[in-house]
C-alpha cells in the first residue's frame, strides 16, 4: 500500500526546497540589499575613540616653558566592583563623610550605571595623590586613577596673553573652519590659544574599538588596522620675557591699565600686561566654569585684554608724532619757537587750551615740557598749509601720516580682539558738523591727543618702536617661530618692515632729543634709570564715564637705550589722577631697568613694592561690584537681569564664551546655600581655589594705601 504513495516523496522534497528558497530569498534581502543593517551594526558595535594629542608648549624668549601640559589624576570608581574595599580610609584621605560617599556612589550609578567607570574625585592634589597611591592596591579593582592632561602655567602669569581653553560651542561647530570638532572638544577661546589653535592642537588620532551591548569598549577593531596615530601640537617660541611680564603684572596690581613692551628691531612683544588680570591657573581644572563666570562678571573686567582692546585718547604722547609731521612737511624747523602766554589763542575765542608752563619753547623744550600751545600751532600749520587746496586734503594728508605710524587701523597682532582705534577723517567731521562746516579750530584738541582720536596701548608701543627705529616698524607679535616650521604661514606678515613715509633721520634725532629731555629733566623724570639713556613722553588724559568727568588717565611711553633701542614701551594707568609722570613714568622706568639690566637695583626694590601696593582702582568699580553682588543675592528678576548683563558683557567685550550662564546658576546656588545656612558642600581643598583677592582687594585696603600715599 505505501508503495503507491511513492510519488508523495516528490511533494515532500518540493516542500523542503520551497522552504529553503524562501529562506535564501530573505537572506539575500537582508545581506545583499539592505545596507542599513551594516550602518546600524557599525553604530552600535564599533566606537571611534578620538585620541587627543598634547597641545603645543609655549616658550619665552629665554627658552623657559611658560605654557605647558601637566598630568592631573582623577579618582575613578566602578560602583559594581567596590564591595569589600576599605571605604573608611578612602573617606578620610578625601576628607568626606560616609553620607557624602554614598551620595557620590549613587550619583555615579545614576549617571553611568554600576558597571561603567565614573569620576569619584576629580583633579587630585599632589598630597592626596601620594596618600592614595599608597593604598591603591587595596582599592582595586573598584577604584583606579586616571590621568588627564591639563594646561599648566609654570609662572602663573600672562593670562591675557595665553587665553584659555573651553568647550566648543554651537557657533564654532557651525563654522566650516573648525571642521572635525565635536561637542565636548576643547578649543582655544582667547589669546594665543585661540589665534594659534591650528598650530597648538596638533592632529587628533582615531582608534577604532569594538564595544558590547553595555557600551563597554572590549577590544581594538582588527587589532588597530584602521587606527591613525595622534600627532602632538607644535611648540612655539615667543618673544615674551616672562620675568618682565610677571614684574609688570605685579606693578599693575590693583590698578586698571596696561603695559606693553616691544622689541623695536623685531616687533616681538616683550610683555603685554593688562590689569586687572587673573591667574591663568584659575581657568584650568574642575572649577573652571565657576571662576570664569566670576571673572566675567567682575566690573573691573579682568578678562578684557586692555593692551589690544581698550582705546584711550593718546593725550600728550601724541605730540611727538605732530612734531614728526610738522618737520617732515616743512611747516616748522627744529628752531621754530612758540611762546605760550597761558593758553593757545590761535583760534581766537572759544574754550582756551591751557598750557601748564608759560614761556617760549623750541621743539626740544616743547616736547620736554609737553607744551600744548606749541603742538596746537604745529598742527594748525600742517592743516592750513597752503600747499593743500582744502581742509579736506590737508587732513587726509595728516591721516596718511597717522596710518603710517600704525594708528587708526588694526595692526594685525597675533592675539584676538584687537581694536582699530580712531583717527579723525574729513568724512567723520562732515558727518559730525556738516560738510564744509568745520575747520582746524573745530578739532584743535586733536593736536594734543584729545577729542576724536583713540589709540590702543599696543598702537602706542608700536608708535614708540617706529620712532626708535627712525621710521619703520614690524607688526608687533608674540610668536617668533614655530617648531617644525610655520606650516600655516601665520608668521609671514611679521617679517615685513613697514615704512610708508620716508622721514629723514635728522628729523627723528630732534624728536629723540626732546624725548630724552623729557626723562632727563622734564615731565617724565620719574622714569629715569641711572646709566640708561631713556627717551620718553608723558601723557595725562582727561576722560569721562557716562558723561561724568573721571580722574585723569596717566600715560607714559618711550624707548631705551637711545643709541641702540632694545625696548619700546608704554604704560597707561586708568583714572589714577594727577599726571602721566606721577604714576606711569616710574613704572616704565622699572620695566626698562628690569629688561635692560636684567635686574632691579637693590635700592629701587622699595619703589617696586610701593607701586605694587598702590591701589588706584576708581571707586565706581567698587560700587558696581556691590550692586552686582546684591543683584546675585536678590530674587529671580534681578538674577535674570544678571543673565542679561552677561550677554551684554559678552557683546561688548568680544569674549567668546558659552558656558558661563550655567556657571552663574552654580554661583547663585552656592550663595543661596550660604544665605539659608545650608551646609555648603565641602569638597576639600581643591587644587584651585579662588579668593576675591585674586581679582580685587577689599576697598578698605585701598583707603589705607591712599592715605599712606598722601603722607
Amino acid at each position, binding site marked *: *500500500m*505505501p508503495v*503507491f*504513495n*511513492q510519488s*508523495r*516523496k516528490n*511533494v*515532500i*522534497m518540493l*516542500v*523542503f*526546497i520551497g*522552504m*529553503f528558497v*524562501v*529562506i*535564501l530569498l*530573505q*537572506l*539575500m534581502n*537582508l*545581506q*545583499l540589499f*539592505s545596507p*542599513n*543593517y*551594516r550602518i*546600524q*551594526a*557599525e553604530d*552600535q*558595535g*564599533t566606537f571611534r575613540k578620538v585620541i587627543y594629542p598634547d597641545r603645543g608648549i609655549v616658550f619665552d624668549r629665554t627658552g623657559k616653558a611658560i605654557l605647558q601640559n601637566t598630568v592631573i589624576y582623577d579618582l575613578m570608581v566602578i560602583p559594581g566592583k567596590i564591595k569589600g574595599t576599605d571605604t573608611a580610609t578612602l573617606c578620610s584621605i578625601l576628607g568626606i563623610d560616609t553620607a557624602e560617599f554614598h551620595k557620590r556612589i549613587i550619583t555615579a550609578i545614576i549617571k553611568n550605571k554600576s558597571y561603567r567607570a565614573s569620576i569619584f574625585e576629580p583633579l587630585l592634589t599632589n598630597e592626596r595623590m601620594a596618600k592614595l597611591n599608597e593604598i591603591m592596591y587595596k582599592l582595586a579593582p573598584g577604584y583606579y586613577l586616571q590621568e588627564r592632561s591639563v594646561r599648566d602655567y609654570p609662572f602663573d602669569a600672562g593670562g591675557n596673553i595665553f587665553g584659555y581653553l573651553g568647550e566648543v560651542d554651537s557657533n564654532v561647530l557651525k563654522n566650516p573652519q573648525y571642521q572635525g570638532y565635536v561637542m565636548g572638544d576643547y578649543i582655544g577661546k582667547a589669546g594665543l590659544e585661540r589665534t594659534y589653535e591650528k598650530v597648538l592642537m596638533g592632529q587628533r588620532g582615531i582608534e577604532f574599538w*569594538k*564595544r*558590547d*551591548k553595555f557600551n563597554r569598549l*572590549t*577590544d581594538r*577593531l*582588527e587589532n588597530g588596522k584602521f587606527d591613525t596615530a595622534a600627532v602632538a601640537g607644535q611648540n612655539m617660541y615667543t618673544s615674551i620675557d616672562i620675568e618682565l611680564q610677571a614684574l609688570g603684572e605685579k606693578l599693575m596690581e590693583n590698578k586698571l591699565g596696561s603695559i606693553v613692551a616691544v622689541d623695536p628691531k623685531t616687533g616681538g612683544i616683550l610683555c603685554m600686561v593688562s590689569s586687572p588680570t587673573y591667574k591663568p591657573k584659575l581657568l584650568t581644572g574642575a572649577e573652571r566654569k565657576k571662576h570664569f563666570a566670576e571673572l566675567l562678571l567682575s566690573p573691573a573686567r579682568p578678562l578684557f585684554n586692555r593692551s589690544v582692546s581698550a582705546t584711550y585718547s593718546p593725550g600728550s604722547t601724541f605730540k611727538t608724532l605732530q612734531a614728526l609731521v610738522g618737520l617732515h612737511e616743512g611747516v616748522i624747523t627744529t628752531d621754530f619757537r612758540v611762546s605760550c602766554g597761558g593758553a593757545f589763542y590761535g583760534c581766537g575765542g572759544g574754550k582756551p587750551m591751557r598750557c601748564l608752563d608759560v614761556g617760549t619753547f623750541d621743539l626740544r623744550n616743547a616736547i620736554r615740557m609737553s607744551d600744548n600751545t606749541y603742538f596746537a600751532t604745529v598742527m594748525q600749520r600742517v592743516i592750513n598749509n597752503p600747499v593743500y587746496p582744502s581742509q579736506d586734503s590737508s587732513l587726509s594728508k595728516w591721516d596718511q601720516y597717522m596710518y603710517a605710524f600704525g594708528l587708526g587701523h588694526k595692526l594685525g597682532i597675533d592675539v584676538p580682539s584687537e581694536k582699530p582705534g580712531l583717527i579723525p577723517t574729513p568724512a567723520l567731521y562732515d558727518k559730525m558738523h556738516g560738510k564744509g562746516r568745520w575747520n582746524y579750530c573745530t578739532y584743535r584738541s586733536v593736536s594734543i591727543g584729545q577729542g576724536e582720536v583713540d589709540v590702543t596701548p599696543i598702537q602706542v608701543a608700536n608708535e614708540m618702536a617706529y620712532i626708535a627705529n627712525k621710521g619703520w616698524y614690524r607688526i608687533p607679535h608674540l610668536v617668533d617661530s614655530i617648531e617644525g616650521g610655520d606650516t600655516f604661514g601665520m608668521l609671514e606678515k611679521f617679517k615685513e618692515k613697514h615704512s610708508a613715509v620716508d622721514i629723514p633721520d635728522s628729523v627723528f634725532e630732534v624728536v629723540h632729543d626732546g624725548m630724552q629731555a623729557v626723562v632727563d629733566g622734564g615731565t617724565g623724570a620719574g622714569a629715569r634709570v641711572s646709566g640708561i639713556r631713556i627717551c620718553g613722553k608723558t601723557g595725562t588724559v582727561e576722560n569721562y564715564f557716562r558723561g561724568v568727568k573721571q580722574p585723569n588717565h596717566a600715560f607714559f611711553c618711550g624707548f631705551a637705550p637711545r643709541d641702540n633701542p632694545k625696548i619700546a614701551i608704554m604704560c597707561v594707568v586708568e583714572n589714577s589722577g594727577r599726571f602721566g609722570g606721577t604714576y606711569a613714568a616710574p613704572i616704565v622706568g622699572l620695566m626698562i631697568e628690569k629688561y635692560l639690566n636684567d635686574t632691579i637695583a637693590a635700592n629701587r626694590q622699595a619703589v617696586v613694592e610701593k607701586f605694587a601696593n598702590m591701589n588706584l582702582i576708581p571707586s565706581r568699580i567698587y560700587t558696581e561690584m556691590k550692586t552686582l553682588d546684591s543683584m546675585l543675592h536678590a530674587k529671580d528678576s534681578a538674577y535674570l537681569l544678571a543673565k542679561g548683563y552677561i550677554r551684554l558683557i559678552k557683546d561688548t567685550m568680544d569674549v567668546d564664551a558659552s558656558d558661563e550662564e550655567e556657571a552663574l546658576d552654580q554661583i547663585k546656588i552656592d550663595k543661596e546655600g550660604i544665605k539659608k545656612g545650608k551646609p555648603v558642600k565641602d569638597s576639600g581643598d581643591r587644587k584651585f581655589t579662588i579668593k576675591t583677592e585674586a581679582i580685587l582687594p577689599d576697598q578698605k585696603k585701598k583707603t589705607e594705601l591712599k592715605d599712606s600715599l598722601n603722607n
Partner: protein
Amino acid sequence: MRYMYQKNPAISKGIDWVMVWLYAILVCIGILCIFSVEFRSSDNLTQTFLGFKKNYSKQLYFFAACSVLAIFILLTDSKLFTAMANLSYLVGILLIIATFVVGKEIKGSRSWIPLGFMNLQPVELCKIFTALALSKYLSQQETDFRRPKSQLIAAAIAFTPAMFSLLQGETGLALVYFSFLIAMYREGLPPGYLIAGASLAVLLVATLLLKPIHLVIAFSAIAGGIIFFSWRRIRRNYALLVFVLLGWAFCVGFVQFAVPFIFKHVLKGYQADRIFSMVGKSNPYADEKTVQLNQVDEKAKKKKEEAQDYNVKQSKIAIGSGGFAGKGFLKGTQTQGDFVPEQHTDFIFTSVGENFGFWGTSILMLLYLFLLLRIVRIAERQRSTFSRVYAYSVAGIIFFHVSVNICVTIGLAPVIGITLPLMSYGGSSLLTFTILLFILIKLDADRQMVLR
C-alpha cells in the same frame, strides 16, 4: 578513515558515510560558531578549551560524548529499535510527567530534569521515542492507515508528548511534533486532511488577528468571485453552488458565532488569554473584571514582547551587516559585542551570517538541504516500512527545526524557542539529534533486513 573502519566490516558495512560526514561537518561548524561568539582575544586558548569553562569547550566535550554514543548505536542490533519502540515511548512520556514533579526551572519553563553534569529535557528526547513508536505502529501489518481509526491512533501517538509540552509552556517544542504529519502524509494520510487542517488553522489565526466583520466581507467577496467565474459550471451542476454557499456559510458561522462562543463559554479566561497572547493580542472576549486583573500581567507581557522584538532586530542587524562576504571569522562586532541574546543557542545562525556573509549562510543552507534530501533518498530505499517511516520522521523533525529556527533569526517567524539542529549549543539538543541520525544510519545499514 574509511580504511580503518573496513578492518571491522561488522560496523562499517552499509553505513552511509555521506550522512556521517554531513553530521560531523555541521557539528564542527556549530562549535566554531559558538567559539566565534564567545572567544575574546584576551582568552587563553588552550586553557579555555581544556578548562570546560566556556560553552565552546563544553560543546566539544558533548561532541566527543555523542561520538561515543553514535558508535554504540552503530554496534547495536537494528531489531532492538523495533523491540524497544513502544517501551521507550512509554518511558519518554513518564519522564515528561516526571518533570512536573522533579522538574527544574530553566528560562521560565519547568521542563528540565537535572542530571548533575547536564540538564535533560525529556520533551526533546521524546521526539526520538515518538518517531520510533509511530514507525512501529505504522509498520504493523494489522494497521490499515486508510481507516480513520488508525489515523487517529497515529495522531494520538504523535501529539501526546506535544500536549504535555504545551502544558509546560514550551510552545516551540510542542509545535515540533506537527512535523510527524510529513511522515504520516508519506504513509497515505489523505491530503484533504492536511489542506483542511491548514485552512482551518489559517482561518483561526485570521479570526484572532482580524475583526470578524472584515473577514465576513472577505469571505463574501471570495464566494462571489468563485460564483461569478465558474457560473457556467454552476449552471450545469447546481450542487456546486450549494457547495460554495455551504462553505461560505460555514466560514461566516465559524467567525461570527463559533469563535466567540468558544472563547466566551468553552475556554477559561486564562486559556483564551494565552491563545491570544500567542498571536500577540489581548483577549477581546475577556470580562471587564479579568481585564483589570490582567493589566499588571499585560505590562509584563509587553516587556517580554519588546525583548523579543529586540532579539529579532539585533539578529537581523547582525546577519544583515555580514553583507556578501562577511566580516571574517572572529571579526563580527555584533556577535562579539553580545548584542544578540541567546546567540550561542537559538540564535547561533547570526554568527554565521555576520562572520561569513551571504555565501556562508547559503552554503550552510545548502548543507542542511542536502542532508534533508539525503534522508529522503535513504527513506525511499528502505525495504521495511518501519525504517521508512522513521526516516521521514527524522527528515520532518530536522526540517521543522531548521526552517523555523532560521526563519526566526531572519524575522520571518515569531520568536519560538527552538534550536538549530547540530549547531546550537546544548548537550540535550546535540544528544537528541545524534541519536535520531545514528539510529537512522544504523537502520539504513541494515536495510536488507525486514523490520516489523
